[in-house]
């Protein structure tokens, strides 16, 4: 366990850091035969309480019903968990199905189909949803919503309006337009050890942010970097290598070389700048969300610095009272497989408004079977909400009805794009930092 990433507030010269990862840690939790029904139940409970509190301002005149209490033709509001019936959704049972088609299936990038439909479930039962208001391609299994509508003759529920939870309340951000510029650097998908990674590019990046490169102006900016966040997929970890046997020396080195290389570079960063490293899909970490911090035995060099923090994924922290929340990208990647949006940023915004980071978890996105809580529920609105390992750098600033302001960032895969993202803590302004190498 990372010593520095506890709750302790670590005084630094440049900024004040406070970890908020506690809810993503699963130290005491155990597998004791619990199932996924409990996390769904916890989620329904949390979100329903919230939605119920909003209904009086939304549609005060309408009665609130359970699925069971529906009466044909009677207008009402129901709250429950959505389930999307998807024709193309692959299941583990397919592995056992008898017939193989002659041509191998091309894996589609998305499992949507025009026949998909939504069902709403609460403790009392399920009801099929109809109507053009609620678009199946936007919503996903696991989400809790309030719906206004009425039961049709066929026993379905005709949806007339939808209430989502909306942006959570936000703590005030210290507004200090004349204050110092302080930068946070985000990078993801370093993929050390993979074929797409270019060690030189990474070295350039390290040199740049540590102030060993560039002109004076650039060095000036580098000096103002107060935090580096690595959002997952730092190495390419060949999980398949482990199949019960002891490894041969060749395989051992294949396994350990990338982490060693990573450690060397991280040590250079940690020597000067506070560094948060989050696990991602390809890292030597567990699979299910929340992913637990990478073990420090993997980083004998950098872990020696107290600026090095191994964090969970999702990861949340505060820097000078600016609140950050982010993941290594799995939650949004999964949404993109099971629903549609015009860009990744849209998905990000959507999850914030749903107040749930990963509704498809556990249905299609593995997660720990929590029994009494749902850590993916977004209690407080972050100022910065980021995801790692995306195709390209995109950002936008959204504003909520309650004066919330959120910077959304999609961090590209560094190994493929050579791009990191720099954000100014003072005004949440963002720009890309690209490293091209002519050598490839």
């Amino acid at each position, binding site marked *: 366990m990372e010593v520095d990433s506890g709750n302790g507030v670590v005084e630094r010269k440049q900024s004040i850091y406070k970890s908020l990862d506690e809810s993503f840690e699963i130290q005491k939790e155990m597998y004791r035969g619990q199932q996924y029904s409990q996390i769904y139940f916890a989620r329904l409970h949390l979100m329903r309480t919230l939605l119920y509190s909003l209904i009086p301002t939304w549609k005060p005149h309408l009665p609130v019903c359970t699925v069971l209490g529906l009466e044909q033709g009677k207008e009402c509001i129901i709250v429950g968990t959505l389930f999307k019936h998807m024709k193309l959704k692959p299941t583990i049972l397919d592995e056992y199905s008898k017939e193989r088609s002659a041509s191998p299936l091309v894996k589609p990038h998305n499992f949507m189909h025009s026949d998909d439909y939504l069902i709403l479930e609460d403790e009392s039962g399920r009801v099929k949803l109809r109507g053009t208001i609620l678009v199946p391609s936007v919503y996903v299994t696991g989400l809790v919503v309030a719906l206004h509508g009425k039961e049709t003759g066929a026993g379905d529920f005709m949806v007339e309006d939808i209430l989502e939870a909306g942006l959570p309340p936000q703590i005030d951000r210290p507004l200090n337009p004349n204050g110092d510029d302080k930068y946070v650097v985000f990078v993801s998908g370093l993929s050390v050890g993979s074929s797409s990674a270019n060690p030189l590019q990474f070295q350039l990046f390290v040199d740049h942010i540590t102030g060993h490169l560039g002109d004076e102006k650039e060095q000036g900016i580098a000096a103002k970097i107060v935090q580096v966040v690595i959002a997952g997929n730092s190495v390419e*970890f060949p999980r398949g*290598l*482990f199949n019960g046997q002891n490894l041969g020396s060749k395989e051992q080195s294949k396994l350990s070389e990338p982490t060693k290389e990573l450690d060397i570079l991280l040590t250079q960063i940690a020597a000067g700048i506070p560094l948060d490293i989050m696990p991602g899909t390809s890292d030597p970490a567990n699979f299910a969300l929340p992913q637990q911090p990478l073990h420090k035995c993997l980083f004998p060099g950098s872990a020696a610095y107290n600026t090095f923090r191994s964090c969970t994924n999702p990861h949340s922290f505060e820097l000078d009272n600016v609140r950050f929340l982010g993941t290594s990208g799995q939650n949004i990647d999964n949404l993109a497989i099971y629903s549609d949006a015009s860009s990744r940023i849209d998905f990000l915004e959507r999850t914030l408004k749903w107040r749930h980071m990963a509704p498809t978890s556990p*249905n299609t*996105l593995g997660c720990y079977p929590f029994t009494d809580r749902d850590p993916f529920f977004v209690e407080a609105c972050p100022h910065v909400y980021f995801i790692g390992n995306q195709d390209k750098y995109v950002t936008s600033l959204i504003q909520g009805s309650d004066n919330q302001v959120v910077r959304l960032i999609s961090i590209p895969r560094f190994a493929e794009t050579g791009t990191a993202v720099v954000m100014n803590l003072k005004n949440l302004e963002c720009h890309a930092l690209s490293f091209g190498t002519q050598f490839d």
Partner: protein
Amino acid sequence: MDYVVGDGHNEFLQSSSGLAAIIRIFGVTKEGHSVCCFVHGFEPYFYANCPSGMGPDDIFRLHQILEGKMKETNNNYKAPKCIRRIELVQKRSIMYYQQETSQPFLKIVVALPTMVASCRGILDRGIQIDGLGIKSFMTYESNINFSLRFMIDCNIVGGNWIEVPRGKYNKISRSLSNCQLEFYCLFSDLISHAPEGEFSTMAPYRILSFDIECAGRKGHFPDPSHDPVIQIANVVTLLGEGQPFVRNVMTLKSCSSIADVDVMSFDTEKEVLLTWRDLVREVDPDIIIGYNICKFDMPYLIERADVLGIAEFPMLGRIRNSRVSIKDTTFSSRQHGTRESKEVTMEGRVQFDLLQAIQRDYKLSSYSLNSVSAHFLNEQKEDVHHSIISDLHNGNSETRKRLAVYCLKDAYLPQRLLDKLMFIYNYVEMARVTGVPLSFLLSRGQSIKVMSQLLRKAKQKNLILPNVKQAGSEQGTFEGATVLEARTGFYEKPIATLDFASLYPSIMMAYNLCYSTLVNPEDARKLNLPPECVNKTPTGETFVRSNLQKGILPEILEELLAARRRAKADLKEAKDPLERAVLDGRQLALKISANSVYGFTGATVGQLPCLEISSSVTSYGRQMIEHTKRLVEDKFTVLGGYEHNAEVIYGDTDSVMVQFGVSSVDAAMKLGREAADYISSTFINPIKLEFEKVYYPYLLISKKRYAGLYWTNPQKFDKMETKGIETVRRDNCLLVKNMVTECLNKILIERDIPAAVQYVKNTISDLLRNRMDLSLLVITKALTKTRDSYKVKAAHVELAERMRKRDAATAPNVGDRVAYVIVKAETNAKAYERSEDPIFVLENNNPIDHKYYLENQISKPLMRIFEPILKNANKELFQGSHMMSKNNCTPNIGIAKLFGKQLSCIGCKTPISNSDHTLCSQCKGREAELYCKSIANVAELEELFGRVWTQCQECQGSLLQDVLCTSRDCPIFYRRKKVQKDMEQAKQELDRWNF
């Protein structure tokens, strides 16, 4: 006004006045009203031969003697007259070719249908007639079901629209049935409409699908004398409508309501049962379906009502005040063997048990509702164990609701299967084609169908069928169909297949084989028939040709096949899916019927066996196959101007496989077509050889065992076809099936033999290294009877016994399927002693007996596949480094328990002191590597955990409720149990890294 003979309940009643049989026809009108029609005036009768020299006086005397004898044997017949009359009629027996057109026969008309049998008995035994001495009579058509007799004589077939003209019927003053319409009429006034044109439509049958749940006591299969019926779920559908219009469930004790379902809760079982009875009466279904209702649900309800003393319960039929009762019946047929079943007859309603129908029509490895729905509907069905059922029932209204939802699913699934498999369409078509009532199709064998057609045809020709006494013993089985020697091997050139279209029916038509054309050997000499008028079959029988007299069987076959051609042509035209369903059902029914005619003549225990016909058919068949082989190999040669010499590599009952030597599918197809046309021209019409498909590549393993890719057009293959290869055998574990399928895929589709070999090696290595998913190793067998009645010790029976000792509540009972795996035990333990419950194995980490799986499960089927392909198959597959097994499975468990919580190093398993928790000093240096190993393991398990458990949530249809399912038939059941347990351990191990 129209209505349909929906079913076979055309029973007779004794009307109080005249003691005559009254036929009852139940059916439904186009508008969907149920009808009960009482038909009067139809009399039971049969024929007997008329000994020569018998005059009118003798007949009169015979009448009196018979009457007397009848009275003697049946003094409880209060009928004034048993034998109504005896007439002299001109008929001809169907047996043997005869030159006379007719002979006198006696038609004996009796008062009641049951008298036919006793009267036949008397005549069989022979009676003394003054002046003629003791005469024994040969009877004809004396074993025909009365209602069938009626249908034949009135030209009514099953699923037939019948019209009763206005003014020809009378309403019944005091209604006797629960039908909406009820009246009586004279049988001669009925107008039967042949099922064509507007009368080919299906009647709007009302179908009730139901399922019951009983609260069994722990450790026992539910028994009606103890265990209450706690829930009955019902789904009612109108034929042809997609959605059910009634869904309800009756529960004992309160039950929370369920969306879209009418939940009725009661405090007593009596109310539950009676409400169900009322439902049946109110809905008045024509057809009642369910899964295993005939053997379980129906008898259970009736017996339970009896135990509870609810006398008014069993009035479920359409006749008022008539009780439904249970009869034990056995039903045997050549195709399906002997089956015991309970028969619950319900007047006016057809019971259609999906289990029986599927067992009859499909060969599956398991017939549990779960596997059946996985197979046909492609979805798993959660399964709740009996012991859980009682717990759910004893919980609260929420848990009972859970049960009710489950019960409803089970009630709806049969309906969905019925729709999916188009049973009603196919069966009604079959009833129409063969002329028997719907209910016969399920409860009787094939022969009644042929019999019905034969009788109908014979009637038109003035022929009558003798009643042969059943010989009983299977006298000398005649030589069956031949297959040409299979030249086993792996053929990498296209193999063209020449098929005889409906070979046996064609032979019967071509050579005019029939009862009525067979020449009795004595007659053959006497009659001196000119050779151009007869055929001598290869077995030496003589049949007259059709120019002399056309046979009845060929005529039936011609009609059937012509009708099939018509149906197929119509099918091509038809657009409407419902119409297509009907037509497709019809063409299938026609095909099956045509093929069963041959079987009818060969059924030695059947109604009218005639081995002369059946053995002639097969011998002709053999000849044709050999003839084809000769012609192909003579004509398609290099000498004959072809590129290669053709070679016949295999011939089956009705097909011949030829390797023409060409390497493209296209060329093989051309030659195949040419050969088929050429050879067909040498056969007598309608025998015809057709070219249909090419196999390429083709793996011929032995007689009746092969696999190949099936091509009907040269661009792309249609599918992979396998025959006789272990993909569906019941006693194999899934691993075998997977391996066989995967190997065939690799060999045939990917054409990569080394990859197939590598795959086998990898899988074996996985098996030996304990990395096999347990569910792949599970073998299931049904526990059909109690332990004592098994003669030899069987693995599943022994296991069931051991499980009962462990925990009687969850142990399998008779009727359950027992799932087991074979585990390692003391060296000389027998295989049956080494069977173990997979769950138990998961929990206790028992080592799997790899050797057993290798030798008894996978080796044979794989060898069969690879032997024709590899020279040293055995060596290639089963020798080498992949055969090294890993012997370190689970030895520590016991010891660790003994010494308390002694920790061991994660790296090398040596015990370590508690202070350094994870690794011993030697392994410290490998920390990162070993950690990665632990974490990789955890990651893999987590992924699997998520996938299986969410799948089960989806299967049970709820996110918010716990999965309860214990379906051992489901491939992921063990996996999810196992991953749950593995996960617990892996997480604990991982936690040791975080000190």
